[in-house]
């Protein structure tokens, strides 16, 4: 009886999980169909599959938008790491006096809605001639991700055994050597996790991208949103474009599941 119950719960779990995953699976499946097959009712399951839609997506110029997304995501992540690693060091291993005030400040900027700053940012960029500029987008994304990165990084730094740092200091290592030689290697997995989460948030960002870019610096999310106008048949090609857009992040997220949890909870969860 107990065993039967267990089997039932397992079956229920799987049915629910698959239901939840269904939209994504269906998107990938549809991307291999022809437009006709994608729009047919009842939906076709057994139909010729091909990569044609993917060719079409790139013919419509998705390549350059992907490159913009990649540039903004990578550069913002690099800036974030450059600022957050030292900051977390100064908030954890060699704490400054008002650690909690500084942490509170960082977290509060994360809670300030983008609405609070979008207008000045828009006009400042306009005045500087930096609208539709991927460097500007990269800087803004860095600001957006910095609080999470500092918090998360600090939680990783907190776990470096104090003895190791002390030993290095006693050995006469100066600050730089201490940071680079001793602490950094222990932290590499944590840093990778922070980088990944910053990358994901930057890659997926839509609000700033849609307002501050038009063509040259346009990233993937606003490109996708303007991809269909609702006329004609477009389900298959839309599915293909969406699949390309979401795939890198999904794979990265799958690989780094454990660290993802901590990052998303800003280090509050082990």
């Amino acid at each position: 009886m107990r065993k039967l119950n267990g089997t039932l719960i397992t079956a229920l779990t799987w049915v629910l999980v698959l239901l939840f995953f269904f939209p994504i699976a269906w998107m990938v499946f549809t991307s291999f169909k022809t437009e006709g097959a994608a729009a047919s009712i009842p939906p076709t399951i057994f139909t010729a599959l091909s990569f044609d839609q993917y060719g079409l997506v790139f013919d419509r110029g998705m390549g350059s938008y992907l490159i913009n997304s990649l540039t903004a995501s990578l550069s913002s992540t690099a800036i974030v790491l450059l600022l957050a690693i030292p900051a977390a060091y100064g908030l954890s291993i060699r704490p400054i006096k008002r650690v909690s005030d500084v942490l509170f400040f960082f977290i509060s900027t994360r809670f300030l809605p983008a609405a609070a700053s979008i207008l000045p940012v828009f006009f400042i960029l306009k005045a500087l001639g930096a609208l539709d500029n991927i460097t500007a987008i990269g800087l803004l994304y860095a600001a957006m991700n910095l609080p999470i990165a500092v918090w998360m990084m600090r939680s990783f730094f907190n776990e470096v055994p104090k003895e190791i740092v002390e030993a290095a200091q006693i050995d006469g290592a100066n600050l730089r050597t201490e940071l680079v030689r001793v602490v950094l290697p222990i932290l590499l997995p944590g840093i990778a996790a922070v980088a990944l989460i910053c990358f994901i948030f930057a890659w997926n960002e839509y609000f700033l991208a849609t307002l501050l870019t038009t063509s040259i610096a346009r990233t993937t999310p606003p490109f996708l949103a303007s991809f269909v106008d609702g006329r004609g048949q477009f389900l298959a090609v839309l599915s293909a474009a969406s699949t390309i857009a979401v795939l890198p992040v999904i794979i990265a997220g799958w690989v780094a599941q454990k660290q993802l949890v901590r990052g998303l909870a800003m280090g509050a969860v082990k």
Partner: protein
Amino acid sequence: MTTLTTAPTPAPAPPAMSRSHSAALSLRKKARQSRALVLPALFFSILMTQIPFLVTIYFSFLNWNQLRPSEIAFAGFQNYAVVFTGPDFFPSMMATVIITGSSVVLSLILGLFFAVLLDRKFMGQGLARTLMITPFLVMPAAAALIWKWSMLDVNVGMINVGLNLIGIPSIAWNTDFPVLTIIMMLTWQYTPFMMLILLAGLQSQSREVLEAASVDGAGPLRTFQWMTLPHLRQYIEIATLLGSIMLLQAFDPIAIMTKGTGGTKTLSYLLYERAFIGLDVGQAAAFGVVTVIVTIVVATLALRTLFKVFMNGGDR
């Protein structure tokens, strides 16, 4: 690393200097170094988020429509008067509360449910968990498009196809039930987030205690109510607060699926509309400032709690 166990030796000091003086000096030097590590991040953050906010406050006192750029003038509190007496603000606040509140509650309940299911040992547990977190990773813009056209479309949407199978006619989700559509979409995206945090909470429970409870004859339901739920409290708080903050700023599905129609015009969408479609900068800025004040008022208490939870966990 040969000196692991010895006591710290003071830095070599010139003989003329007293021991304590040199120690204080090196302490001060250390403090300066620590500050130098934190300051760049702090400055960057202030420059990119706080200064623009101050400028937003300034804008909110201007009479500035982009259609008439030559007529920029000081407007006093006129824009704020428009915000509070105009027909848009309070409905928009209601929309924000309804959409954020329902999505948080629903994704929390579903997230807890899935966390409990996935905490069991079963065939393919790892794979199920992996599939389950995916909706949160999907680019929100792509998710909104796929839901709009591939899942909820009146003619070819799979949800409607499913409903037809059990004899229910197709529903025009986007136009007839826009609020429900947005809540559904957001719940789908945020359930995995809630689940991940709650699952981490479940897995941090001590097995021995649970086993002891079971030996003492406590049924699974009672164990859950009296031991698991209290243990999860802190995780539920974190999940709720972080989820609320992210959901409060949700913009993508509204811009893509409903364009603010039918009660989905949240504060962030309203501001966008005022500024970038209505081109009224002063008024949009006033909306922005009010939005921030509302958020701060609501969030301050919440943030305090959150902060306490954070600082209790993982502090040196």
